[in-house]
């Protein structure tokens, strides 16, 4: 009898906890959707920040995130391949793996400060390159870790089977092992992209922000997240409305990429 009562109490408590957690999540989403959707107009997408829209911000944010991806994917994947396929078990590999894990939890503002000292201060102005580099630094350890873990899931027999057919190590890795881990690695890249597209701290004093449309990465570069931060602090209603709209759109972007990642897993497996 006691066990049944205890079971009911635990069940009640854990259900309650789940409801509290999910409740807050839905509260956030509901507020965001309500305030966001009512603040979105056609002009939000067609005009630049200077005219009360976010067109240049979206383009700027994606430009920096995509550039970061182009740098981080090859570097991260090659490092991951090294860790799992070449350096496995070596001292150097375990040091790199640990450092990469530390990097993954490094406060993003610290990465921003570091890139500021490296690429902003010496050149005398905020610039888009610095923003892209800061995002790439955030992304690399995530991709290293995903690649490393996904390659670890590829059965050893597959490598041996490739070798047994007369393959050299690098061919087996590139043509079989990485291909076998393709779905996992792709998903990891998508999720890490979703992670950096919503980052503010690494951009605050690297790319900073730009009210006007520009593709000149040597200049201050438009950023959606930094704009949300700025707009939310302005006193006028129009700015705050735009901040809500931008927040909602950013959330939708991140959500879409995340769902896409899950979709890839479900369909390719």
């Amino acid at each position, binding site marked *: 009898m006691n066990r049944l009562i205890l079971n009911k109490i635990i069940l009640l408590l854990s259900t309650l906890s789940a409801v509290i957690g999910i409740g807050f999540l839905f509260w956030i989403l509901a507020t965001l959707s309500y305030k966001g959707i009512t603040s979105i107009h056609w002009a939000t997408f067609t005009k630049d920040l200077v005219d009360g829209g976010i067109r240049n911000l979206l383009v700027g944010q994606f430009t920096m995130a995509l550039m970061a991806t182009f740098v981080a994917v090859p570097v991260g994947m090659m490092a991951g391949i090294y860790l799992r396929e070449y350096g496995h078990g070596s001292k150097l590999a375990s040091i790199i793996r640990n450092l990469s894990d530390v990097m993954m939890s490094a406060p993003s503002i610290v990465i921003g400060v570091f890139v500021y000292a490296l690429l902003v201060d010496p050149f005398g102005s905020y610039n888009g390159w610095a923003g892209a580099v800061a995002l790439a630094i955030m992304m690399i350890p995530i991709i290293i870790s995903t690649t490393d873990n996904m390659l670890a899931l590829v059965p050893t027999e597959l490598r041996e089977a490739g070798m047994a057919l007369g*393959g050299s190590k690098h061919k087996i890795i590139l043509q079989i092992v990485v291909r076998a881990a393709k779905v996992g690695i792709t998903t990891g890249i998508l999720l890490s992209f979703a992670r950096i597209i919503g980052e503010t701290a690494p951009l605050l004093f690297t790319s900073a922000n730009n009210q006007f449309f520009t593709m000149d990465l040597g200049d201050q570069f438009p950023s959606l997240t930094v704009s949300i931060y700025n707009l939310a602090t302005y006193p006028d209603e129009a700015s705050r409305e735009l901040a809500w709209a931008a927040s909602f759109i950013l959330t939708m972007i991140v959500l879409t990429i995340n769902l896409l990642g899950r979709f890839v897993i479900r369909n390719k497996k």
Partner: protein
Amino acid sequence: MTKNNLVMELKNFSFTYAGATKPSLKKINLPIEENKITAMIGPSGCGKSTLLRSMNRIHDLYPGNSYEGKINLYRADGSKQNILDLKKENDFIRLRQEVGMIFQKPTPFPMSIFDNVAYGLRLAGIKNRSELEGRVEKALKGAAIWDETKERLGESALGMSGGQQQRLCIARAVALKPRVLLFDEPTSALDPISTGAIEELIAEIKSEVSVVIVTHNMQQASRLSDYTAFMYLGDLAEFDKTEKIFLNPKEKLTEDYITGRFG
């Protein structure tokens, strides 16, 4: 048994895993006859897989193992080579084209059925499309899955059943026309029907390739093989014609094992 019937021969072969103090295989002497099936049986941990994996030096994927003695490979042209002398990656590649391997679990590559079979051929430098197609078809026919696969050569090999995948792996290995094929418990992950198909296949391909098979299944060894090696604790306890081993073994240990008294 005359010397020129042999395709491989192990002489005083010892093997020690990286970091181990004692050898896992101790002074093994074992002849592998051409176009025959040699089965290796013995309780788990006796070293039969270790021995098999030495014969195409797949152990060398992992550093630090040490070999002693000789494993001679006799080529069709009559030349012989001690495969333990090989050092360079290119030599290993050539060895593995001559001595292929089939694993316990089917190991289809994440690519189409055609590309799976063509993979080894492409590695061996065959680029000509019509030659590739011819050899792939011949290999698939040789592995008795041509009828099941000819309509779906472009589909992923991962969609096949376990038994089909294993036959595909055999086709893939046969396509290279190796001298020897090493089978490491090729049916232990398969159902009885697939097992039957694989056994039939192995019996058929022995006219073209010499076979060494590690198995835990005594019936399989007795049904399939011409010679049987019984291994125990890293020693080759007994080696003889299969009928002899199963009907009238010399060693008490062999008899106890095959009658199921231990192991």
